[in-house]
């Protein structure tokens, strides 16, 4: 599903964000991508979505992403800040944006809008405008906008950041209900353990740990060394 070979990325100032990553994620896996702040989690997700151009080989859903510019792909990325993903005047138009660009019929678009909104528990939010929603509602609306494009892989960047307990639970439930491949970048391992079965740890742009979630959570010394806690 996702195959990465020797992936490297440099910022404007020349510092290395990713230093030769090798990774393979199979279809249907539920993966948590963990690491301390500045480890390169977000950069990796942006590369996988094709929004950053990195060196190395990068295949997502059978397509070579490394040479392709930003565009729709098998991977749906939910950003950390939902305001950046809700750019239309109303929630309904926002969620319809993806399907409409896929040239679906208006009937199909309407179906997808209502089904993705009900999947995130926001049925009837179509005429609301993003600015009036709470942080948790915005986050769920942003997820619905990505789900409406029907991605094979759902990638989320810090999905629980800035959310209260109830909103976090709602987001966790949405992820558990998603049937495809799941990729969650977070350092909140307690919440991630409810959703993911595999844990990948990166630190300073390099892969430092990869294995079943349960096993790695036992290794407290390893987690401590990379700024994480179970």
């Amino acid at each position: 599903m996702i195959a990465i070979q020797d992936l490297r990325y440099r910022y404007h100032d020349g510092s290395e964000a990713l230093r030769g990553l090798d990774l393979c994620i199979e279809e249907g896996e539920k993966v948590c991508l963990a690491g301390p702040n500045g480890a390169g989690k977000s950069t990796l997700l942006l590369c996988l979505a094709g929004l950053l151009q990195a060196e190395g080989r990068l295949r997502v859903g059978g397509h070579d992403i490394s040479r392709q510019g930003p565009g729709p792909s098998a991977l749906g990325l939910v950003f950390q800040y939902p305001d950046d993903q809700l750019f239309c005047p109303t929630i309904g138009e926002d969620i319809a944006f993806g399907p409409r660009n896929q040239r679906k019929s208006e009937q199909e678009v309407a179906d997808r809008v209502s089904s993705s909104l009900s999947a995130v528990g926001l049925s009837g939010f179509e005429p609301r405008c993003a600015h009036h929603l709470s942080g948790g509602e915005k986050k769920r609306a942003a997820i619905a906008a990505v789900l409406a494009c029907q991605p094979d892989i759902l990638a989320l960047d810090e999905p629980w950041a800035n959310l209260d307990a109830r909103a976090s639970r709602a987001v966790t439930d949405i992820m558990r209900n998603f049937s495809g491949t799941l990729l969650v970048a977070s350092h909140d391992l307690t919440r991630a353990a409810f959703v993911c079965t595999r844990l990948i740890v990166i630190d300073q742009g390099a892969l430092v740990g990869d294995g079943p979630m349960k096993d790695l959570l036992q290794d407290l010394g390893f987690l401590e060394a990379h700024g994480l806690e179970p």
Partner: protein
Amino acid sequence: MGHGFIDRFSRMDSCIHRLDARIKIVLTLLLIILAVTTPPQRLLAFVIYAGVLLWTTAFSQLPLQHVLRRAAMVLPFSAFVALGIPFVHGGETVPLFGLRLSVTGLWILMGATVKSMLAATALILLMSTTPFNRILAGFRALGTPKIFVDLLSLSHRYLYLLIEEATRLRRAAIARGYAPKWLPQTLIVGRLVGNLFLRSYERAERVYGAMCLRGYAGYLPTSGFAPVSRRDGMLLVVMMLLLISVRVFVH
């Protein structure tokens, strides 16, 4: 100046709220243009325009206080530009409070103030009875270029977020003892604005990324309109005739 301040009323329900946005836009613009071009001496015409606006306010169930308070916000500019007018214009003068004021000047002052108030009231009624996305769809349907409508839409979407960011930056500066009194201290405002620009630019980059991932091809989709109903069409024609005849025949 929160978002709710303007938007709170636009999603209420009344016969004016339900009216087709295109009709509301056309009638508002017509009323403003007619009012602005009416000579100030035709007091009766202004009374009728004000009557139409009051009547609309009543039907729209908006609180009158909200409408008037918002309309009064244009007064400071009038004061700045216009209060000097009666003193500096020549011609016939009248004594008032022991001053000699030019009659022409007084007419100009009165006309400009009344017109700006009427226009502001009409706009507030339009914006308080129509959600902004319907206004934009109306502009699009009335022939505004797609790109310009998209820009208005995006800019309106991020406006309040950036105002909040600006307010936070300013508050952070004040919390650390920023109390500007003199022009050189503007440099600190400059740093805030520079910071705000970088944040805005980076937000634009993230928004563009989000758009591309969902298949953006240069245009935002907008919702369309049902054809104008016969009842709404009749209302449009009657109101246009009424307003134009007031402008032409009432002296």
